[in-house]
């Protein structure tokens, strides 16, 4: 029988760029979702606001603190550069978080003293198809599971899109 996760408490996403955490958490049935983004680009902000999760966007930090205050302690999911995450980590005490998770690119230095353990996860380890790796830090211990469904780029390339034909000799 399938088990469905049903976290009913508040969840906060703090993102420097595209808030991909928000879409993932929406897919994991988190309904009390609040997204705070430091959008560097108005184009990216417009795209997010146009999406189904645009409604979760909170414009200012004070608004976020106020709206979360009445909901209980949130789980905070963070993504962005090391410097962005350090800045946000210093502010998260305002939210009285139940748990904190930080995802940064592998080359970023976080040095977060509150982290219980840090681990590097490659996309391919969880069944993905990019060569990227990301550092995961959390103030709680986690047990990551691998994915049984693995795809390859060849499975998603659209074979009805034309291009420059290559000879068999690779010219």
């Amino acid at each position: 029988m399938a088990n469905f996760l049903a976290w009913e408490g508040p969840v906060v996403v703090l993102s420097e760029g595209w808030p991909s955490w928000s879409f993932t958490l929406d897919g994991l049935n988190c309904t009390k979702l609040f997204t705070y983004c430091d959008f560097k680009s108005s184009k990216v902000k417009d795209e997010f606001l146009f999406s189904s999760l645009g409604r979760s966007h909170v414009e200012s930090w004070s608004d976020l603190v106020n709206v979360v205050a009445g909901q209980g302690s949130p789980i905070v999911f963070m993504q962005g550069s090391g410097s962005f995450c350090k800045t946000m980590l210093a502010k998260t005490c305002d939210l009285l978080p139940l748990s904190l998770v930080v995802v940064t690119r592998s080359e970023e230095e976080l040095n977060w003293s509150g982290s219980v353990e840090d681990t590097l996860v490659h996309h391919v380890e969880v069944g993905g198809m990019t060569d990227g790796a990301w550092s995961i830090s959390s103030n709680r211990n986690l047990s990551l599971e691998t994915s049984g469904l693995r795809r390859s780029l060849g499975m998603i390339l659209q074979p009805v899109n034309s291009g420059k034909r290559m000879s068999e000799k690779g010219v």
Partner: protein
Amino acid sequence: MGAIEGVDLVPAGRKHLKVLSPLVFTQDDLVLRDILPGELMDAYDVEVTVQDALKEASRIHSVPLSLAFVLEAPGKLLTAVGQAVLKGLLNPCPLKMESKNDRANLASDKICPPISP
């Protein structure tokens, strides 16, 4: 960097890539072309409904997609982490974050220690 093929991994963080793709109109040869935005979204595990919304926003505003998601962790990776966090809070047993090698050899009969207050 040259074009990537179906067996290659997608270089993370890059919005513009050349791919060698099969083409139904040719017998054996591959064609060289730019990766499509939809293919890039698939590679980063962007859910179909989100893909549709992004494409619609691009169409309505007559601007190309920002493809900003390539600078972030892909969906499958975040889902694995998100599930671990939520399961840990919903079933609070202090499981340890395993190393890469440990994860490959996960024991199915791991005993859950008593729940701590």
